[in-house]
């Protein structure tokens, strides 16, 4: 009898979590290099209340994980020479942080007072041979599609682009940075292209997210009603069966 209420509750808990994720997607609809996320749901087969060969077993809803869509976001022109967008799915810039290497799709880089290429937060951008140092006296840097940076026609470094076999192993650390949570090492990506003066926008589809939002809200209401109905049913059963005439 109580199975219906508990199954409803398991769905409501996942709906609350789905709402949190949709809210985060919408809040980041304008975040550079953001990748849309979705809750992955599965069924958890539960035990029946009593041994009953006729009726089927009950299945609860369980959230198995958060899936991230690493699809390409739109490249938006900014006109800034140190903005870099990656064209190619699942490819990242390698960044050196105090906690080890991190990976990002946000290519809005700046120069620090020593002329090193760093992220907005001041983490050093990794090149093929260590950090990349630019000389401001040599004019605007030009970046080729393979990430080679040159000034005045002379190459000064190459942006390190990496990819992973299993993208699901990447964990998010905020600030647009991903960290490698598995033992798999990053590999050099040779098939991606770097676009100078462009930044990759978020790949959130706002219309889809608003539709999800409506669905979540309606589903939550429906299940609340179902739980109420189940409660009504058991209350009436108790009233009727408990009557002594």
């Amino acid at each position, binding site marked *: 009898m109580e199975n219906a209420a508990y199954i409803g509750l398991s769905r409501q808990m996942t709906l609350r979590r789905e709402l949190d994720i949709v*809210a985060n997607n919408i809040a*980041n*609809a304008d975040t550079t290099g953001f990748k849309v996320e979705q809750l992955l749901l599965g069924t958890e087969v539960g035990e029946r209340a009593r041994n009953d060969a006729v009726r089927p077993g009950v299945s609860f809803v369980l959230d198995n*994980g958060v899936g991230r869509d690493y699809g390409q976001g739109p490249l938006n022109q900014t006109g*800034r020479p140190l903005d870099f967008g990656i064209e190619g799915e699942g490819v990242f810039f390698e960044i050196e942080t105090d906690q080890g290497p991190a990976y990002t799709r946000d290519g809005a880089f700046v120069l620090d*007072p020593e002329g090193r290429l760093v992220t907005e937060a001041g983490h050093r951008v990794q090149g093929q041979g260590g950090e990349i140092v630019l000389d401001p006296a*040599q004019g605007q840097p030009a970046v080729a599609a393979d990430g080679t940076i040159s000034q005045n026609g002379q190459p000064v470094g190459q942006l390190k682009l990496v990819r992973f076999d299993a993208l699901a192993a990447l964990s998010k650390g905020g600030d647009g940075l991903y960290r490698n949570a598995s033992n798999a090492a990053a590999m050099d990506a040779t098939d991606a292209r770097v676009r100078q003066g462009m930044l990759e926008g978020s790949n959130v589809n706002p219309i889809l997210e*608003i539709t999800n*939002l409506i669905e979540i809200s309606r589903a939550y209401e429906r299940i609340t009603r179902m739980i109420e109905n189940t409660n009504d049913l058991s209350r009436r059963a108790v009233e009727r069966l408990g009557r002594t005439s």
Partner: protein
Amino acid sequence: MRALRTAASGMAAQQLNVEVISNNIANMNTVGFKRQRAEFQDLLYQNVERMGAQSSAQGTVVPTGIQIGAGVKAGSVYRITEQGTPSQTGNRYDVAIDGRGYFQVNLPSGETAFTRAGNFAVNGEGQLVTDDGYAVNPAITIPQDAVDVSISKSGQVQVITQGSTEPSIVGQLELATFFNEAGLEAVGDNLLMETAASGPATVGTPGAAGFGQILQGYTESSNVDAVSEISALIVAQRAYEMNSKVISTADDMLSVAAQVKS
């Protein structure tokens, strides 16, 4: 409910975005103005179920985990130092920089400020000053009997005085460049100040390697593009609306939950 705070962070970010865009539009006709852009980053993530965690005694691991984000924050608001279009004014003390560099200006406080706005004038003593009356560094004094002033591409200031046919050199304009131009601090009145992030100024003559050239009789227009600012404004407004929609949905769900009784 986490969704409420997440959406609130989204609304705050879009509000900042609108503020930056409105400042760009307001300065569409400001001499030497460089447009700004707000850049956003995602906030920290909560690990509800950590990826790679053991899911059974047999050593199976959670392949994806559950990470839930807490919203968005402004990563930075940076200046886009793209060249503005030089516009002809005909004023002989108007100078535009074509390329990299900033003019140096002596502030009354004794500090040096940097500017791209070259709409200069001369004061009562014949000294070249900004339109606020601050002297341009290095000081250039135009003699009172000058009939014509010409400023070369390399910043050399020459005058032809009355009764003379030979031009005489009265000064040399200099430009300052920085390792990290985006690190300069804007203090209003078209002026920028050096910071630890920008690095020290490198001073040189216009036209030298790494420095821009001087155009006399022109000022540099603002590099704000009205069409792209207006479309950015539309996007920001819609994003703000969608975040408010999340708040009302979360509120609806809370009220549904609160009404469950019996």
